[in-house]
């Protein structure tokens, strides 16, 4: 009775189907047609903290543009995603370079997020087999606990354990594992903003377990969803503009 009262009754049907339904709701929250925002990385390394600010534009699953606006030493650094390609523009050298191969596993601007994390744009249900593990608690919230196991070879993390908030349908906690079962990253979503029926995460903490004593908080603000964005933002000419 208690479970039905808090909306958890569906999970006692076909658990795999219900797990997929949960992930579909998660995807509905996070997948957008267009998105503009201002972002801030707060990168904590040992006892030092560094802030990096940027603006971002996203269109569908194939186009994204980020430009760093601060601090001074990072101002003007830009990233452009065109499908599965990622380009970086450095104002110091006035040219763009393609980020490929093992470089994609490096961190963005020294944060705990990697380029791979940034360009991954596929729906979770397309690349993972989803298994319902039960009801659990994360960040003092009742969650569906799911295990996602890769069903295609080119995934960044072979396994993910995800705690989906039963009310907001956001993966408020996640653990990413390598095929060897080594824990690589931990993510928590501590805040979100409501846009109509959509709950969009606005504060994400990423801990790269392969580094020592670091974590990065990503905060998003001035978020605009499904607004028109000029196509020119997603061109190399715009990336390399003077």
């Amino acid at each position: 009775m208690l479970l039905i009262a808090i909306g958890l009754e569906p999970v006692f049907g076909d658990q795999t189907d219900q797990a997929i339904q949960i992930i579909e709701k998660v995807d509905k929250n996070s997948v957008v047609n267009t998105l503009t925002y201002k972002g801030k990385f707060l990168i904590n390394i040992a006892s030092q903290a560094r802030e990096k600010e940027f603006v971002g534009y996203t269109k569908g699953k194939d186009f994204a543009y980020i430009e760093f606006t601060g601090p001074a030493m990072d101002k003007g650094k830009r990233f452009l995603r065109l499908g599965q390609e990622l380009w970086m523009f450095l104002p110091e050298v006035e040219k763009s370079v393609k980020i490929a191969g093992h470089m994609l596993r490096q961190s963005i601007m020294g944060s705990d997020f990697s380029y791979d994390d940034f360009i991954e744009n596929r729906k979770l249900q397309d690349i993972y087999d989803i298994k319902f593990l039960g009801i659990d608690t994360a960040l003092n919230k009742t969650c569906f606990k799911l295990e996602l196991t890769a069903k295609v070879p080119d995934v960044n993390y072979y396994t993910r354990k995800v705690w989906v908030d039963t009310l907001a349908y956001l993966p408020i906690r996640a653990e990413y594992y390598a095929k060897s079962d080594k824990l690589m990253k931990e993510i928590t979503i501590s805040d979100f903003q409501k846009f109509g029926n959509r709950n969009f995460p606005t504060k994400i903490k990423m801990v790269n377990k392969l580094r020592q004593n670091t974590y990065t908080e990503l905060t998003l603000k001035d978020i605009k969803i499904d607004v028109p964005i000029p196509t020119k933002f997603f061109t190399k000419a715009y990336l390399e503009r003077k």
Partner: protein
Amino acid sequence: MISKLLKLAYRNFRRNTRRSIISGTSIAIAVTLIIFTQSYIKGFTQNISDNIIKLLSGHIRITTKEYERRERLLPLSEAIDLTPEFYEVLQAEAVKLIAPRIKFGVLLGKNELSIPALGYAIDPIIERQISGLNKRIINGAYLDSATNATIIGNELARRLNLTVGDTLTLVTRTAYDSPTGINLVVRGIFSIGIGGIDRSLFYIPLSVGQKLLDLNEKATEVALVLKKTDQTKPISARLRTKLDYSIVPFQYNSLLRYINAFTIVYYLIYAIILIVACSTIANTMIMVVFERTREIGMMKAMGFSNRSVVGLLLLEATIIGVIGSFIGTVIGAGISYWLKIKGLDFSKISSTASTDLPFGPIIHFQPSFTTLISTFVMGIIFTVLVAYLAVRRTVRLDPAQALKTI
């Protein structure tokens, strides 16, 4: 008595000159070979030590302990603060030069970043005194201290299709893992003759590197060149008590340690060479005893003691050993001293070697007076020892039986 035995031994030595020459020649060849090999190994070790000191670590290399542990990853975040206090500690010792360096990895390429290379941010004025890099420039000029310029290895330049005056674009990451880049003018192209260096290294001024990598007043390693090489280990030990860093004398280089660990093997090889060469002496002495059995019986019948008979035969062997060893020493010394001056060109091999094998391109042999004398003496000792093993049966010869021998 001894002079009579000597005369007799010399006469016997000349009785079968051809056989004596063959025996002496084998000793000479063995002695020449050992002097050549010893001089070569000493020269090779010296060459590697020089290259390590001049091009890699100085006499002593200082890094943070964490940097040393994770060096393969080139962790720029584990850098040394170049504070006045740090310099004070170093200057209190008999240090001639202090060379802060930043080693960083990059991917280079005109269209796609696909060629891995290793950058060194260096103080051009100090480094020219350590490595003589300014003398290795084959095209263009050496670095100056503050301009956005680079000197690069000739093989790396060839792979990147770069020449003097071109622009080299570096894209790398700062100590805080942020992407960064710089356009550098290729000021010069150098050739060290060691493949790993010419193929993948480039140098930039330290100040430019510190700014590029967000390492203001820092360096990932500090190389010390001392006033006296033999002070390396004591100074390292003293510095370890004052600084909480990894302080490694050049002798701890893994390649040098590997070579030194084989010293005992080299001596075994020398002994085997001598023993093989002395087998001709053994053969000669067995033949001598066989041919002169009646003569030996006669000598014993006339009152020669066993010791005198053996002594006579050993004197004959000694004459062969002395002459053979002397000729071998002269030839070995001649070749080794000639190769000390001229050097042996290993550039074809060293040009393909990695930076972990910093040998060549020219290896100058290192013969020493000790090597020559010790090999000369060992040649004689081995000859006499082997000869003794061959002639000792004469002690058991019965004079009457010996006289009956045809």
